[in-house]
């Protein structure tokens, strides 16, 4: 027999977790004691929110749920912003929090907070473990839920006394849940309708979203784009789905996007949304989209289809599987007329940038940065002007552009960069403003302590 705390560590080992991010405290001590006996590397962050962001960076590079840990009360509460950030961008994550002893739950005990209730709006699911025997089942379910379907954060809250109970360890091999069965395959009839619509369209446009990365469908996506010869625009989360200098890529759409992308969106007669939710920043007037064009919307989350933009052809399913299916049936490529038209607009929208003596133009700097970094570099943008400069000027090649798209959480770039680097990314560069840098600069301690080769660029404009 082993303690629940030891079982928790073993569950993590079974899920092949090699690195965790966290901050200890009284209510999570039994787990931390058990963790010291494991080969799992623990990265001590300087504030719990950064543990969450680091896990987010780790998960976005590996594509698998990453783990962060905090104690009860303030520790857990500090994680909330990071949990909400991950939820908005659909990042798979398992959060472990300590809780006060079962008999004290509900008595406003020292360092007690209802983290389940507080985080409920932005977790995909959450557990408070009252029955020690259920711990392994809870872990198996948590990783299963976090990593499948539309990924998201799952929280496990374990009271301190429960962590010390002895149990028989038995990790379930498989997990089936009657009430959770994400749809992994697009409907064949709908796929056929979509392909016919593409065939008949004169000015089709693909809008790439973050779903392409989440379903690991970059290859299939590129094949689809090339086979159909359709121009591509992206949301902020979809940047890098196609290399930024690809002749078919016309930039980011929306409020902070570029003219060629927005013109393409306006003038297209068929919009193909791939793993994108057409949020308010991407599509300012979603109710008008259907006036001028048909919409094909492919997403694993049925609730996203029809939420912001009405879909004429909805396809619910995993993007990778659906694109494989579509690639096998796609017919001839479109001619170049529409692409040539967009090329012309792109050529005519080169804005002349002003130079001020003694200052560096941030856009020019970002473009130069793109040339100097490795092809597979992971660039982590923070939030604010620096983010938009990056989104529109950084040239993603084989690497990634990570940022907090949905929540717009300042202070994201350094801890996320730490996570991305720990996940094995070759070269990681965090770019932040002087405001966001000061929100997270305590992580310099973490970076120094663990000797993490992360490059940080601070864009100083002396405003925050």
């Amino acid at each position, binding site marked *: 027999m082993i303690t629940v705390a030891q079982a928790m560590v073993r569950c993590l080992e079974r899920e092949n977790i090699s690195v965790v991010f966290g901050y200890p405290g009284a209510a999570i001590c039994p787990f931390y004691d058990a963790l010291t006996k494991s080969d799992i590397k623990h990265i001590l962050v300087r504030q719990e929110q950064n543990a969450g962001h680091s896990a987010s960076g780790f998960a976005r590079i590996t594509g698998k749920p990453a783990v962060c840990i905090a104690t009860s009360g303030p520790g857990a509460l500090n994680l909330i912003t990071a949990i909400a950030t991950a939820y908005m961008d659909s990042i798979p994550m398992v959060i472990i929090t300590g809780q006060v002893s079962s008999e004290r739950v509900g008595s406003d005990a020292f360092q007690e907070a209802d983290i389940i209730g507080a985080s409920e709006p932005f977790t995909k699911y959450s557990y408070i473990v009252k029955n020690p025997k259920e711990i392994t089942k809870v872990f198996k379910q948590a990783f299963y839920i976090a990593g499948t379907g539309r990924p998201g954060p799952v929280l496990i809250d374990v009271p301190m006394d429960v962590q010390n109970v002895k149990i028989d360890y038995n990790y379930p091999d498989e997990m089936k*849940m009657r*009430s959770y069965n994400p749809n992994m395959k697009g409907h064949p009839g709908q796929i056929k309708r979509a392909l016919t619509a593409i065939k008949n369209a004169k000015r089709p446009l693909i809008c790439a979203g973050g779903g392409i990365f989440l379903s690991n469908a970059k290859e299939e996506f590129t094949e689809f784009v090339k086979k159909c010869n359709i121009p591509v625009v992206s949301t902020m989360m979809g940047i890098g789905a196609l290399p930024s200098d690809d002749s078919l890529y016309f930039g980011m759409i929306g409020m902070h996007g570029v003219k060629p992308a927005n013109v393409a969106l306006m003038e297209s007669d068929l919009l193909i949304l791939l793993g994108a939710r057409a949020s308010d920043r991407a599509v300012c007037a979603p109710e008008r989209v259907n006036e001028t064009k048909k919409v094909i919307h492919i997403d694993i989350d049925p*609730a996203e289809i029809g939420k912001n933009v009405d879909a004429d052809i909805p396809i619910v399913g995993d993007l990778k599987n659906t694109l494989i299916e579509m690639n096998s049936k796609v017919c001839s490529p479109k001619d170049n007329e529409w692409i040539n038209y967009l090329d012309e607009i792109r050529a005519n929208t080169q804005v002349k940038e002003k130079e001020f003596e003694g200052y560096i133009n941030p856009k020019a700097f970002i473009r130069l940065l793109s040339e100097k970094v490795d092809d597979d570099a992971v660039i982590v943008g923070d939030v604010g002007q620096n983010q938009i400069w990056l989104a529109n000027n950084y040239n993603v090649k084989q690497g990634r552009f990570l940022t907090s798209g949905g929540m717009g959480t300042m202070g994201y770039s350094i801890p996320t960069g730490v996570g991305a680097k720990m996940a094995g990314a070759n070269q990681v560069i965090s770019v932040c403003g002087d405001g966001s840098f000061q929100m997270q600069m305590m992580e310099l301690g973490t970076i120094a302590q663990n000797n993490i080769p992360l490059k940080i660029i601070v864009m100083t404009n002396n405003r925050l």
Partner: protein
Amino acid sequence: MKHTISILVENHAGVLSRISGLFSRRGFNIDSLAVGITDDPTMSRITIIVNGDDYTVEQVEKQLYKLIDVYKIKRLKVEETISRELMLVKVSCTSENRGDIIDIARVMQSKICDISSESITIEISDTTDRLEILQELLRPYGILEIVRTGTIALQKGNKSIC
């Protein structure tokens, strides 16, 4: 327009809070919510009456279905549904008007479940419309208090949502 949504959910702690939280968070208006265990003790059935246009109700359905604990969800059509609500209503009475109140209760096929010298408590299980008729009829006598369970509903015939 009012819509009836029937939901089968896992029967454990926290499920109801997730569901009601979703309604307030996403700004959906509910007229009533009734919950109870089913024949399968691991499953509860929730009936929700939602007020809204088609877009809103479709969103309600999709967002509910997204919750991990929701097993099945179905919008029930009015014409294919039997729906009932239980109401207890306490009315003040005097020896003069007690007979009239009892007559109303009888006509409405409701039951007198408690009586005292100054009040009568009537129990009615019927459609929401009929509950409201009874309420209007009793209002002149002085309603002391009312409690309602919220609507529950099943499909007619041998159809089931399971």
